[in-house]
């Protein structure tokens, strides 16, 4: 069965990819991008990677589609048909592809347990997670503690993206702002968003709380089931963005004001860092959670819980402020 599913999904994936590249209308391309991410999520799930599938769905399908659409709203909808240096591109691309395929000629078996990948470091994690952390989800154990430094770096990548977008879009745009003031009719508080469309308003009212609840569940249930800071942050951000779409951007800003976004972003990163520093102060190494509590195992669990919270806070803060930065753009 999984063989059939694998082949089907992969071919579908390639077809969607080619469709994206050939699509002239950028809106179509973005929608296909969403489908592309969902296909990737299912393939990941098929390959026993539930955590990654959840992230790909939440981040790939959810947030990136929202960001692309926000950007499209501000720029051209349709791509001008102008493929510039086609032959050069084909040549470069085929050489890279040949180089990659050349690598697979050797004895690369798919899924055989004796491959070096599964012999060396991998199994050590599987045995020792129970001993050190006693939590079922090994991926969260590695993410949180064994390779916690990677996740700290990861957190700061998101933080940099947030900083970058706020910095770039912080300036007042060059568009002749005086004309813009007069042209766009002052959107009254009520006419914003989809308030007076019946269906979205009703379903939205129902959906938003459920999404936020699910987000919190994913956040704090990361050790037992697939989930964790990144996924939770993305889901919570998606929930609030849905609320913004329904009630209008100013309403959403009243719910989660700008200073709180900045506090969330910086607070999360600081929380993660401080957990590491506290570990150092208590005599362990940087990011060593076993010293956090008297019993090392509870210390590890406490550490993982805290850093997942930090990650969740920062990711949601960053994604929301990016959305607001884009959304605020077309007001001017």
């Amino acid at each position, binding site marked *: 069965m999984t063989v059939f599913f694998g082949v089907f999904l992969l071919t579908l994936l390639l077809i969607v990819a080619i469709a994206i590249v050939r699509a002239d209308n950028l809106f179509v391309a973005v929608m296909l991008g969403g489908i592309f991410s969902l296909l990737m999520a299912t393939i990941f799930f098929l390959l026993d*990677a539930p955590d990654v599938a959840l992230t790909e769905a939440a981040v790939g399908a959810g947030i990136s589609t929202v960001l692309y659409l926000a950007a*499209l709203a501000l720029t051209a909808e349709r791509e001008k048909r102008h493929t*510039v240096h086609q032959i050069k591109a084909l040549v470069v691309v085929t050489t890279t*592809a040949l180089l990659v395929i050349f690598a697979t000629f050797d004895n*690369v078996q*798919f899924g055989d347990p004796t491959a070096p990948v599964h012999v060396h470091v991998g199994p050590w*994690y599987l045995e020792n997670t129970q001993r050190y952390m006693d939590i079922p989800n090994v991926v969260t154990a590695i*993410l949180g503690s064994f390779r916690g430094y990677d996740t700290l770096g990861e957190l700061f990548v998101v933080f940099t993206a947030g900083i970058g*977008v706020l910095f*770039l879009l912080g300036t007042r745009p060059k568009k002749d702002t005086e004309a813009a003031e007069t042209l766009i009719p002052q959107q009254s508080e009520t006419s914003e968003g989809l308030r007076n469309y019946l269906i979205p308003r009703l379903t939205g009212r129902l959906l938003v709380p459920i999404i936020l609840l699910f987000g919190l569940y994913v956040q704090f249930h990361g050790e037992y089931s697939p989930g964790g800071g990144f996924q939770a942050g993305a889901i919570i951000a998606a929930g609030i963005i849905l609320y913004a779409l329904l009630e209008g951007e100013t309403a959403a800003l009243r719910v989660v004001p700008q200073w709180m976004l900045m506090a969330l972003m910086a607070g999360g990163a600081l929380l993660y860092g401080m957990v590491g520093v506290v570990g150092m102060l208590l005599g362990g190494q940087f990011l060593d959670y076993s010293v956090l509590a008297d019993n090392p195992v509870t210390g590890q669990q406490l550490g993982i819980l805290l850093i997942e919270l930090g990650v969740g806070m920062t990711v949601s803060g960053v994604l929301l402020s990016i959305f607001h930065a884009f959304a605020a753009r077309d007001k001017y």
Partner: protein
Amino acid sequence: MDWLGVYYYWAFAALLMIGFYAVIAKSNLIKKLIGLSMFQSAVFLLYITMGKIDDGTAPIYHEGISQQIFSNPLPQVLILTAIVVGISTVALGLGIIVRIQEEYGSIEEHEILGIDER
């Protein structure tokens, strides 16, 4: 079972090719960015395919079942990080594209170069 594995790698190569082509050949900046994110997601496919073990399951313990074959958790952790790196790059790229649209009034690479020459 063997040719399926190779099919996964060839799918990875094909996706890489498509993404890379879009980045180089397309002049629309947003299409370039989409190509770039596709290029990166191809790499995610490579890593996760590596981690799969025949009839293994997700690396999560269940109380009852003791002897379980689990797929390798490490590539999954790496890809979790790589996905978020990808989205951050896309977010920053889109921010720059919006600024370019405001400064130049177009997001076609050949038009922007033209404006600069004048």
